[in-house]
């Protein structure tokens, strides 16, 4: 089987839309609400989860034949927790500014259901390379939803994107204009509604296909 056979490409691409971890499997919702008030943490969180899912998948896949069945969840958790700790230590030493920005979010990755879900459902049965692709696919599937939600929330909640002003100051009600930021957007509840709309849109699109 070639490195990127039909089947393996599907392993990488189905989690992006058809089997999206957030929109279809409805996993990882808590962190999707917590980090998406602005675009930047959403992007960084998406990338971190992608990297960690991919490598945790590879490690578990390599160990899959040796893991005792009864403690397999614990083994998976240890692998994820160690990887997250390693990543956060390395960030602190070599990219201090990023680590300050991420602060608690790095720790939150451990509790992300997508990771455990992929380890248990995929990496325990498949080869390391396929598991890697699956990890990258699911991480990116999660990341783009986060970015989409973060985009909408920062734009309409703050009028900015990545901290840069998009909606001009002059049209704001404070300055004699007509526009007010939507305060709801900065609340987690609104993130849930946006995720709901995304799920609806994705499912409707797939029904037609």
């Amino acid at each position: 089987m070639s490195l990127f056979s039909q089947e393996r490409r599907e392993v990488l691409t189905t989690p992006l839309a058809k089997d999206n971890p957030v929109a279809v499997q409805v996993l990882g919702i808590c962190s999707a609400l917590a980090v998406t008030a602005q675009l930047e943490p959403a992007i960084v969180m998406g990338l971190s989860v992608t990297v960690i899912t991919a490598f945790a998948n590879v490690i578990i896949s390599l160990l899959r034949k040796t893991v005792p069945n009864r403690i397999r969840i614990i083994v998976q958790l240890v692998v994820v927790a160690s990887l997250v700790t390693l990543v956060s230590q390395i960030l602190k030493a070599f990219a201090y500014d990023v680590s300050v920005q991420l602060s608690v979010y790095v720790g939150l990755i451990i509790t992300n259901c997508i990771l455990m879900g992929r380890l248990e459902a995929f990496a325990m049965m498949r080869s390391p390379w396929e598991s890697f692709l699956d990890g990258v696919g699911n991480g990116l599937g999660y990341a783009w939803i986060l970015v989409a939600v973060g985009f909408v929330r920062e734009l309409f909640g703050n009028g900015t994107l990545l901290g840069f002003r998009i909606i001009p100051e002059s049209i704001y009600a404070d300055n004699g204009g007509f526009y007010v930021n939507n305060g709801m957007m900065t609340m987690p509840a609104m993130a849930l509604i946006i995720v709901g709309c995304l799920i609806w849109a994705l499912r409707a699109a797939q029904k037609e296909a």
Partner: protein
Amino acid sequence: MNTNKNSYTIIYASVMVVIVAFLLAFVSSALKPRQDQNEALDKKKQILASLHLRDFATNEDVESTYNAVVVADAIVDSVGNIVKEGKNKDQDGFTKASKDISPKQLPVYICQIDSTIKYVVPITGRGLWGGLWGYIAIDDDLQTIYGAYFSHESETAGLGALIADEPFQKLFNGKHIFADTDTVRQEPLLTVVKNGKVEPQNQQYQVDGITGATLTSNGVADMVKSGLKQYTGYFKSLHTIK
């Protein structure tokens, strides 16, 4: 091999734990010096940020600016005695972590900008979700705020987290710490009020809070008040010297 045997499970778990423990301990101790260095550098950046010195191109710039601006990192106590003079700039007050700060051990950075003296004091407090900290730079009249810097552990992104951004910190510039009529200068009046609730007659003591982040804004208000209150004894001693 039977991977379901009890003995196998126990040995597997033990070996795994030992390997992971060694790996993490090794990585942690190997990276510690670099992390400490980063933390010290970050602290210097924060102190300089309270003096409106932000945006450095390189780490060397931070070091050289810090060395040029900071005259001493003294340690004082709440009565106004000087515990350590801090002539080395980052060996005395600078080494105090926020948990080591007590009424007997208060770091103060004596800085010089355009040949006027500024005093920078560290403050700590609690926000909505976790710790807050910051630095307040005070003019040599010991009444006017020259600049402020705040940061936080885990305030809500887009709301409470805005205290770490320059627009909010700028609101403190030029505010007065004590009532202008107050000659005792014991109780700081400076505070953060609910967004849009600044009273015109008190506007020199009141900073506009952040919409939707009232609890974080209150945390900042408490932190600024209690932090500055600790230094009133020191400020008084400086007045009498003058």
